[in-house]
């Protein structure tokens, strides 16, 4: 994986700007986003450094970071940015790009999202029990939340049946046309 200090990918900067509709040059590294970010403790790069990596055209470093997958989308950074940069949207866009480039530093997170969207495509709504089974299948994390299952089932909080929508063809059509658009 190249991480030379000489790499500067201007196309990457332009792409992040276009997809996020944000002006990256407005970030002057005040650190407010990082100060408010609740997940910083688990990040490899705090969010202001992610912003700096993007400004510096460091595509590989930014897209292979763990931080972009661990961002909880809590919108604190966006809310507190003094220059009105939608930082959370930039984190979203970096995840989109990392997926497209097949760089996934947090495989479990990506697998969970994938299982979630497969459930939506299949049923029109999320079927929580099916989602968990699919996630376990994808990751082999057999004991994920097994401790919660008896409680959730006893409370009737995990429906045993999916709640399929009636017009499933409409949802399938949306996913199909979305994929065509993206090709």
């Amino acid at each position, binding site marked *: 994986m190249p991480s030379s200090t000489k790499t500067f990918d201007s196309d990457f900067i332009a792409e992040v700007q276009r*997809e996020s509709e944000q002006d990256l040059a407005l970030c002057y590294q005040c650190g407010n986003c990082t100060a408010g970010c*609740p*997940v910083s*403790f*688990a990040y490899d790069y705090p969010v202001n450094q992610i912003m700096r990596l993007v400004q510096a055209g460091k595509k590989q470093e930014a897209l292979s970071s763990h931080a972009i997958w*661990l961002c*909880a*989308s*809590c*919108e*604190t950074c*966006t*809310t507190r940015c003094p220059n*009105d940069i*939608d930082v*959370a949207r930039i984190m*979203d*866009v970096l*995840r*989109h790009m990392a*997926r497209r480039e097949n760089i996934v530093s*947090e495989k*479990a*997170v990506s*697998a*969970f*999202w*994938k299982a*979630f*969207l497969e459930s*939506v495509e299949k049923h*029109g*709504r*999320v079927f*929580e029990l099916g989602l*968990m089974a699919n*996630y376990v299948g994808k990751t082999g994390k057999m004991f*994920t*939340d097994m*401790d*919660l299952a008896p*409680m*959730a089932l006893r*409370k*009737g*909080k*995990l*429906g045993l049946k999916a*709640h399929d*929508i*009636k*017009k499933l063809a*409409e*949802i399938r*059509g*949306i996913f199909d*046309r*979305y994929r065509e*658009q*993206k090709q």
Partner: protein
Amino acid sequence: MSLSYAYYPGCSGLGTSLEYDTSTRALCRSLGIELVEIPDWNCCGSTPAHAVDHLLSACLVGRNLGIADDMAEERKLDGIITPCPSCLKNLKTTQHRLADPEFHRKVELVVGRTLKAELPIKSVLQVVVEDLGIQALAKLVKEPLKGLKVVPYYGCIMVRPPQIMQFDDPENPMALDNLLAELGAEVLPFPLKTDCCGASLGTTRKDVIAKLSGRVLDAAEEAGADAIVTACPLCQMNLDMRQSQINRANHSGHNMPVFYYSQLAGLAAGQGETSTMLDKLCVSPRPLLAALAGHTGEGA
């Protein structure tokens, strides 16, 4: 004043937050807010959709907005409402982005229909405190929640980002505080009221949840609260269903009930189990409620 809304329940209302959906419907009924469920609504995609692709997220939301457009042609609607902050943020963000004509055209192509998406979109909480007015709750209260010490926990995105959500103060919201005070509860100051619980990392990164939700539980206990009150299905699940996991990870011993505000409204209104569904909470609130009833000399 009669208010009528297109109601978007959200997927968790069919499973892990059944009690939120049920008690929300009961609260609205008793306040005279008519909820007309969006027929055949689909999942908004939640965090996974916007984290994977903004067009996909907008298109999943777009189908629901389109159905609501059809409803509005047939009857008078004051807007679209949902109890779930994540659904709310996706609905509002999509409406906001549809203002861009090129994006609007793309979304219509994928959804396969035209979209107006002009109805106001709000949380049920916002409708209760803003459209109806908090005083309306006073008429509802038959058994004030006297002696119940609570901290209000809004979670992240009920009020954030403010440019999109357009509701209350993004750093120190008061809607839930005021509502709970109106129900007769003692509302304690809570500096963590908008701090993140770890959101959807519950399944994938338990260390993050143990730290962030653990901090919320610690702070609530330090504040002297008997219970936490939420307005978000994901916050509630992390704090309540995962409380035992968090205790194990942090070597803590919390036994803190985590209510939905709509359950407490039902309790104060004297509604029974069928609408408050207190049995659905993983940390039982029974001992707490029994102690309160004993304290005020009322039957449990």
